């Protein structure tokens, strides 16, 4: 079986869950090799091996941390050129999509973005995508070059397949463009104990109906009772009630959890684009005509300030 390159998404060596999903998917279409860029490879190797990486390519160079996108594209393209993989899987983050885009241009390869599933097909990897605000499912495959596929979080359940990967340090010849965009400063986002939005099995979101930053605790308490992530509509984010990194929708994060609870959210098309593929959808809204109710598996027409606290209490009672 051919080698499948999997670009590792990590924070200082802590591998993020979508990478484990990619390794799991890669095993369906070939033999996964992880491509680790930046610092912390030692810490990551064991995890990558546990999820089936046969090999780990490591590029530890300052360029990768200090400049935007291009050094990572340089590294991935160079490794791809020497390894001639059967496919390249990249996490569908903003950076991941752009790295994929540049490598595609460089290798003359086809690119498929935001796959929600990848399987082996007659003509190489077959992908599944949700398009047009998740109203359509599209099956596609790459027809030219090495298929480059960016894969959304939650596309697969990570499965262990322990291996002891061979580690290969790669020294990359960076392009002149690599140092073009400098990251002058970074401000880490506040850490929370809640699961990440894209990775959570359950997301509880609040919208304009929450009516104030101080009221978001009503949403957070239900989230905590369920071990869920907290989301927000753009209206709530724009009002400054909750950080932008929690925005669900077309221009925020697209989530696909087992359960999505929308409280005080009307269900505009742009919001639906980010949550419509959730397995089970529940809404609390005081307007019985709110479009969100067209999507729900269960809905409560009522005041979220009455329903949500009662829900929280009831969840805690049943635990």
């Amino acid at each position, binding site marked *: 079986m051919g080698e499948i390159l999997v670009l590792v998404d990590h924070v200082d060596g802590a591998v993020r869950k979508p990478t484990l999903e990619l390794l799991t998917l890669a095993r369906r279409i070939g033999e996964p090799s992880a491509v680790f860029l930046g610092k912390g490879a030692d810490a990551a190797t064991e995890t990558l091996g546990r999820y089936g990486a046969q090999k780990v390519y490591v590029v530890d160079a300052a360029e990768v941390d200090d400049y*935007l996108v291009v050094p990572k594209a340089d590294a991935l393209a160079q490794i791809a050129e020497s390894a001639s993989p059967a496919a390249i899987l990249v996490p569908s983050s903003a950076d991941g999509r752009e790295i994929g885009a540049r490598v*595609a241009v460089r290798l003359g390869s086809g690119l498929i973005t935001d796959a929600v599933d990848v399987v082996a097909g007659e003509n190489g990897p077959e992908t599944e995508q949700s398009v047009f605000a998740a109203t*359509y499912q599209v099956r*596609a495959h790459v027809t030219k*070059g090495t298929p480059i596929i960016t894969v959304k979080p939650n596309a697969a359940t990570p499965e262990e397949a322990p291996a002891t990967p061979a580690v290969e340090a790669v020294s990359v010849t960076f392009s002149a463009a690599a140092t073009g*965009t400098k990251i002058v400063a970074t401000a880490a986002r506040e850490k929370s104990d809640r699961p990440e939005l894209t990775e959570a099995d359950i997301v509880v979101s609040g919208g304009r109906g929450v009516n104030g930053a101080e009221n978001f605790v009503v949403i957070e308490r239900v989230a905590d009772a369920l071990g869920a992530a907290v989301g927000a509509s753009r209206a709530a984010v724009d009002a400054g009630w909750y950080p932008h990194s929690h925005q669900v929708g077309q221009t925020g994060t697209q989530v696909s959890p087992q359960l999505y609870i929308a409280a005080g959210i009307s269900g505009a098309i742009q919001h639906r684009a980010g949550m419509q593929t959730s397995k089970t959808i529940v809404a609390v809204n005081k307007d019985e005509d709110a479009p969100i109710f067209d999507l*729900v598996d*269960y809905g409560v027409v009522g005041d979220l300030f009455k329903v949500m606290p009662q829900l929280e209490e009831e969840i805690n009672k049943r635990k």
Partner: protein
Amino acid sequence: MKIVVCVKYVPDATADRGFNEDGTTDRESVDSLLSELDEYAIEQALQIVESGVEAEITYLTVGPDDAREALRKALAMGGDKAIHVSDDDIQGSDALGTSLILAKAIEKAGFDLVVCGMASTDGAMGVLPAMIAERLGVPQVTYLDEVSVEGGVVKGRREGDVASETVEASLPAVISVTDRTGEARFPSFKGIMAAKKKPVEELDLDDLEIDSDEVGLSASWSTVDAATARPARTKGEVVTDEGEGGVQLAAFLAAKKFI
């Protein structure tokens, strides 16, 4: 200096969008308009000029005949002129093909700064700015929530995947801006009248020295095997809270094994 703003003409996101039999987007049965997210790109380009940077603003679109509508709307908001690349052989181009056409047209027009939207509202790949930058061999500064240009340097702030980042690059460069950069202005009546007199240059593949077999559906780097409408979600039970709404909801979640 020269600013090129890339704008796309897309099927209205609020209508029922769909596909043609060959897997390309159906652009016939749904009204199209200037991609909402590109209005933010136009607004930022106009603001850069208003901040005192001396620049000429050119809008660029690759699309069918009626894509000119997108250019008219952009010109009504402000700016100087527009380029419309249209050719029967372009139909069905994917991101790699479109980025080639855009890059050639940008080179032909001349540029110091290329401004894009964060993603098109139909393709929604969010990859063209990076592809254009790659083809032009210039830096990319993408997904900016704030932008400024000063002394030949473009600076901005973006929400990266794990942290908020301040980034900068020397011009020439390609940037993309988000819907958090600030609401776009509405074209004024005066603007709409003025736009009618602004030049729109029409180009085809020959003008850009692109072979017709390099782009279009047949040259596409990927192919759609099937496009199926997702079955509409069937509306489940909706109850009215009469004091027990939270308890009823909990019972539903418990039945579904979430609690």
